[in-house]
């Protein structure tokens, strides 16, 4: 993985000094809170319901075991012994003191990490495929490009006070695992007819109040022009994006307003001045960075491991885990392991300091000392020998990280919601937990099969509810918490935005609502059809009919108090 050179270290060090002084000036009131706000946000620090939350960047989701251990250290020393992995492949800590944040950033810098631009109206952490470099269907490893963009966007002077936040994702595989269609810019690394490497450029996707899938504005951009072309997009957006209403300020609204064609024309015109300027990427720099992402020293192994086959025959629980949590690896004899952070009873994405240390250990012993964070809020050990899978499973299981539910109904994407977030209209974690409990039976989950259930506590959609096969959105009605349900959303190659089925529900009704939706699927599915396929074939009508057919018992307490 990428390693800092003297310049990366220098810039990180100067940033911490700048931020430390800003915190000092805030504490002695030289800076007002309003003035300090964007400064702390661009260092990852939010004010939440109870305390400050610090969001640390995990560039394109890739971590070393040493960096992982630093998270455990921060969790123990500065927080309450746990951290929360996010849908943007980052980690956040919920109980942070402002005064201690400069020291935390200094600890992070010692392991080549930072919290730069993980919030604020700037270019955020670049996200990518959690299986980059090892996926069977990979065309081109996107990580060198993601790292080059990380550096380019870090402290870009012109684009630090954009109309709104700006998210870039890069995918380099056949299957889009980076949800590029719901990003401000979604890049796909591709070959053109002559075999040259470049990007298909998608702009204007996003979730929030107005969910929109991105539009392709260029089918092929040769790789050298990545930065100048993005600069052109950013400059058009910085000048013409709306600033009068934060809900209409994302680039997707500008694209909608002037049309993708006119937007493209403006970008292309802006780019004429920038094309072939010194910001054009060089072969030397690409090779330098790509040199950090070369394949590990894999052993030559048989494609199928005999001991693995034996364990499969004997152990159903292990087989279930293999089926859901282990993915094919491009190198024979290896596999990709997804460690589930979705154990029933635990907030989705949460990991204790002890678990974080343990995963770092596993990575050292079995996976070249590296791991990844997925945008579905799980962890990945990308390079496990098949002959080690049984041992890894047993160890992971002992630490509550082997729930065999990846891609199933209990692998819920969920934002922190009203328990932590000051923007939330409703709690989301207790809803996720109640649904997970309802579907706890593994055979039942496996029978239901592929299912993405996503929950957001407010319209900002951090829980990606729009692209959940079942999406749940917390809303506030007269001071109570209610939940609006949509179905038919999807991420990836066949992205779609879910449709709302009707009036919203109380918290305690939610498990039954999901149950009724699932029952329609089990009743009406045809052979081999996933839930999403059935919703596409039938539309929302039969689901709606079933959910609203008879009243759903609601506990006497509603919303705010339902899970108190």
């Amino acid at each position, binding site marked *: 993985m990428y*390693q800092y*050179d*003297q*310049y990366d270290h*220098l*810039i990180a060090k*100067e*940033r911490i*000094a*700048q931020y430390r002084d*800003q915190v000092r000036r805030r504490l002695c009131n*030289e*800076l007002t809170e*309003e*003035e300090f*706000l*964007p*400064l702390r946000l661009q260092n990852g620090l939010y004010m939440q319901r109870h305390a400050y939350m610090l969001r640390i960047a995990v560039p394109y989701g890739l971590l070393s075991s040493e960096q992982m251990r630093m998270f455990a250290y921060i969790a123990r020393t500065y927080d309450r012994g746990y951290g929360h992995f996010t849908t943007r492949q980052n980690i956040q800590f919920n109980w942070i003191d402002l005064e201690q944040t400069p020291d935390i950033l200094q600890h992070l810098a010692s392991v080549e990490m930072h919290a730069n631009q993980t919030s604020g*109206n700037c270019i955020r952490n670049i996200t990518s495929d959690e299986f980059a470099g090892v996926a069977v269907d990979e065309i081109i490893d996107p990580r060198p490009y993601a790292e080059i963009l990380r*550096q*380019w*966007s*870090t*402290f*870009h*002077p*012109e*684009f*630090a*006070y*954009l*109309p709104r936040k700006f998210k870039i994702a890069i995918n380099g595989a056949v299957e889009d695992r980076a949800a590029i269609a719901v990003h401000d810019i979604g890049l796909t690394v591709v070959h053109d007819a002559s075999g040259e490497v470049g990007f298909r450029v998608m702009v204007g996707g996003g979730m929030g109040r107005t969910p929109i899938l991105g539009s392709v504005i260029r089918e092929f951009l040769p790789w050298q022009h990545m*930065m100048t072309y993005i600069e052109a997009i950013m*400059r058009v957006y*910085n*000048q013409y994006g709306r*600033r*009068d209403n*934060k809900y209409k300020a994302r680039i997707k609204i500008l694209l909608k307003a002037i049309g993708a064609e006119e937007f493209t024309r403006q970008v292309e015109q802006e780019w004429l*001045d920038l094309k072939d*300027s*010194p*910001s054009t990427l*060089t072969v*030397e*720099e690409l*090779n*330098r960075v790509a*040199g*950090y992402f*070369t394949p590990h020293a894999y052993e030559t192994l048989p494609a199928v491991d005999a001991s693995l086959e034996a364990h499969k025959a004997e152990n159903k629980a292990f087989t279930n885990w293999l089926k859901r949590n282990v993915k094919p690896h491009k190198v024979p004899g290896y596999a990709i392991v997804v460690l589930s952070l979705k154990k029933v009873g635990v907030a989705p994405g949460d990991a204790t300091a002890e678990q974080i240390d343990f995963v770092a250990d596993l990575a050292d012993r079995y996976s070249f000392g590296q791991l990844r964070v997925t945008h579905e809020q799980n962890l990945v050990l990308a390079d496990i020998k098949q002959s080690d899978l049984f041992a890894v499973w047993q160890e992971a299981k002992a630490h509550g990280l082997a729930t065999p539910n990846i891609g199933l109904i209990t692998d819920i994407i969920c934002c922190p919601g009203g328990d932590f977030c000051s923007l939330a209209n409703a709690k989301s974690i207790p809803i996720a937990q109640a649904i997970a409990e309802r579907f706890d039976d593994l055979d039942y989950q496996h029978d239901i099969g592929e299912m993405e259930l996503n929950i957001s506590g407010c319209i900002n959609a951090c829980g990606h509810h729009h692209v959940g096969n079942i999406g749940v959105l917390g809303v506030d009605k007269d001071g109570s918490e209610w939940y609006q349900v949509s179905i038919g959303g999807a991420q990836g190659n066949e992205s779609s935005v879910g449709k709302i089925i009707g009036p919203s529900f109380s918290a305690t009704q939610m498990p039954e609502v999901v149950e009724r939706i699932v029952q329609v699927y089990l009743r009406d599915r045809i052979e081999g059809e996933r839930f999403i396929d059935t919703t596409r074939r039938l539309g929302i009508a039969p689901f709606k009919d079933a959910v609203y057919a008879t009243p759903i018992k609601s506990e006497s307490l509603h919303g705010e108090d339902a899970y108190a």
Partner: protein
Amino acid sequence: MPDAVTTPAATTPTVTAPTPNQMQKQIIKNKAVVGDDWTVLRLAEGESADGVAIPVGKVIVPLTVWQAQAAALQLRAAAGELGVWFASDERPEALTGEVAKFAVIAVDFPKFSDGRGYSIAYNLRARLGYTGELRAIGDVLRDQMFYMQRVGFDAFEPRADRNIHDALKGLSDFSEQYQTSWDQKSPLFRRVQRTGVAQ
């Protein structure tokens, strides 16, 4: 975050009585605190761009005033006594071919969080070829000045309620940068030998 601020902060009067050596307005120019004899003209309620009287002396007028009164102002511009300022929603191309006429061009930041002025400044330098003094006015604060300097500003009128010598420190927050802008025409990867994987 609310962005609606109708009164530009730069016009907020200071409450402390000025000492003699502070009598003259000061700005930051070329990384130093210097005296300044320019006046920024802002249209008051009811004043129009074509009707407003331009005070004597060195004046930085709104772009709309220049556009409305260009003929009458040509001589003052030729004498080096006229500047123009852009509001954040105005386009730098409005001065295409004319930028060399002005001793000063300023860009107003109605709110420090309004980032349009960065692109206006960059375009004035990079596209319109403006080489004279480019001044940031309005809600100009220390913590944004480093980035402002990078996109082409060489003069700053920090908000009047702040210590200008403190603000000056904001210009030296970083000694190195990854990407190009007006101040740095070559990205880090072209300028220096960066370390690759140790063999």
